[in-house]
């Protein structure tokens, strides 16, 4: 009789626990729904063409836009990409193509560790390395910080994607007497480029959402500037400043900036999805 009791007990436990895991999964989604709901409903009120093409207005004057911040964010991730993409792709290529010695292990490990270093720390380093010697804040310093932050994502994706290329392709190239470097460039990277591109886009979209490393590197700018030697505006820093400000009008614009940022990231990840999809289709 005892075993029968135990049977029902463990059946019941199992059902309850399975139900609880489902509840946990639902609970995890709730904040997502909330955040999207507020960002969209609050952000949409100020979303108009002006927001994309006009400059910010001084306090008290309604309207205005964030054209400078949108361009600023694009310039910042552009600089970041100019650093992060070559370093990431080349390092990833080295890790996957040149053996499994201790140095490769160490670099792979450091790349993983680097991805866990808080972005604000990277900002501090960019400050001491770029801002201090230049004696002023600049888009360049912010871009460098973002570039460093992109390296781990791009490196590891490149490595994984190259490893997915079938070994037979490599051997086919080498068997034709093509040197290894040409094989890698002409065959391997060409086969894997779509996967690598997704990694690059992922890195860029994450960088677009970074705020902390920009606070004391790119700083921010209320005026139009595309000079990378000068402070530059970014959407994220605007969101931060406007969210903290006591002016309701600015608070509203912070929501709109958040919506625009999410749209920007969504466009990037949409491209990312399209690329990955076509990749699986061709396979």
């Amino acid at each position, binding site marked *: 009789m*005892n*075993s029968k009791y*135990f*049977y029902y*007990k*463990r*059946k019941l436990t199992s059902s309850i626990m399975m139900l609880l895991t489902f509840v946990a999964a639902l609970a995890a989604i709730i904040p997502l729904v909330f955040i999207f709901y507020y960002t969209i409903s609050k952000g949409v009120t100020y979303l108009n063409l002006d927001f994309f093409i006009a400059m910010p207005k001084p306090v008290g004057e309604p309207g205005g836009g964030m054209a400078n911040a949108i361009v600023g964010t694009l310039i910042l991730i552009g600089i970041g990409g100019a650093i992060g993409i070559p370093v990431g792709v080349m390092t990833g290529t080295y890790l996957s193509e040149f053996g499994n010695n201790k140095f490769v292990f160490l670099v792979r490990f450091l790349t993983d560790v680097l991805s866990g270093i808080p972005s604000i720390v990277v900002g501090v380093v960019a400050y001491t390395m770029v801002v201090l010697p230049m004696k002023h804040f600049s888009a360049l310093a912010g871009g460098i910080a973002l570039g460093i932050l992109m390296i781990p994502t791009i490196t590891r994706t490149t490595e994984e994607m190259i490893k997915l290329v079938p070994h037979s392709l490599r051997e086919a190239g080498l068997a034709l007497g093509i040197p290894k470097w040409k094989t890698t460039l002409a065959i391997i990277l060409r086969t894997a480029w779509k996967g690598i591109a997704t990694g690059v886009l992922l890195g860029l979209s994450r960088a677009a959402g970074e705020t902390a490393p920009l606070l004391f590197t790119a700083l921010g700018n209320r005026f139009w500037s595309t000079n990378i030697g000068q402070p530059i505006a970014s959407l994220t820093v605007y969101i931060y400043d406007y969210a903290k400000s006591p002016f309701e009008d600015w608070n509203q614009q912070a929501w709109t900036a958040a919506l625009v940022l999410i749209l920007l990231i969504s466009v990037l990840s949409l491209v990312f999805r399209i690329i990955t999809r076509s990749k699986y289709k061709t396979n």
Partner: protein
Amino acid sequence: MEIKLSVKNLDAYYGKNKVLNNISLNIPKNKVVAIIGPSGCGKSTFIRTLNRMHEVVGGTIKGEILLDGEDLAKTDPVLLRKRIGMVFQKPNPFPTMSIFNNVAAGLRLNGVRNKKKLTPIVEKCLKQAALWDEVKNNLDDSGANISGGQQQRLCIARTLAVDPEVILMDEPASALDPISTTKIEDLIFELKKDYTIVIVTHNMQQAARVSDYTAFFYMGELIEFSDTKKMFTSPEKQQTEDYIRGRFG
């Protein structure tokens, strides 16, 4: 002859893919039934329908399977699998558990916690599985730190500990060396006194050595089911003969 498991008009599917077509056969009590056939013929799927492991990987069935006249579809799989144990192709001991706890695992799952009760059962099952002498001095070692052949006998002991009526074996020796294989075969011979055994094998000599009855599957169909001696000396169907004589597969 008493029938332990009776399969009637069984179809099995993975999604929309039909992998078994209209299988009917009776498995007699305390005998060894071997399932043979080329790879992909559905023999593994068949054995997995018998303890409803087929549905664990998303498969479905049509038709009926009766255990002592009771419909499997109406039995709770948790209770059913206590009565019908299974040994898998690759040994799969629990690496986080000691040898002792591996054997005791099934009993623990069923609520037997008392070590005094467990100890004699573990010893008995390890002896039955012909493993006791090799591991009796290191019962606390991890179940993953012994050889592949020992791991498979550990898995058999683990299955025996739950005290099943039927034991299903899915190519239990295919990942093992010849000496371990012999040990497993000897074991099957011993076990059939107390248990009904269904064994899937791709090795025809093995089927001929250990089984009382043999079923030949081909392309999801049961081609022939008969007494093992008869099957290997004078098969009724041409396909069976071709397979046994090694003309394909």
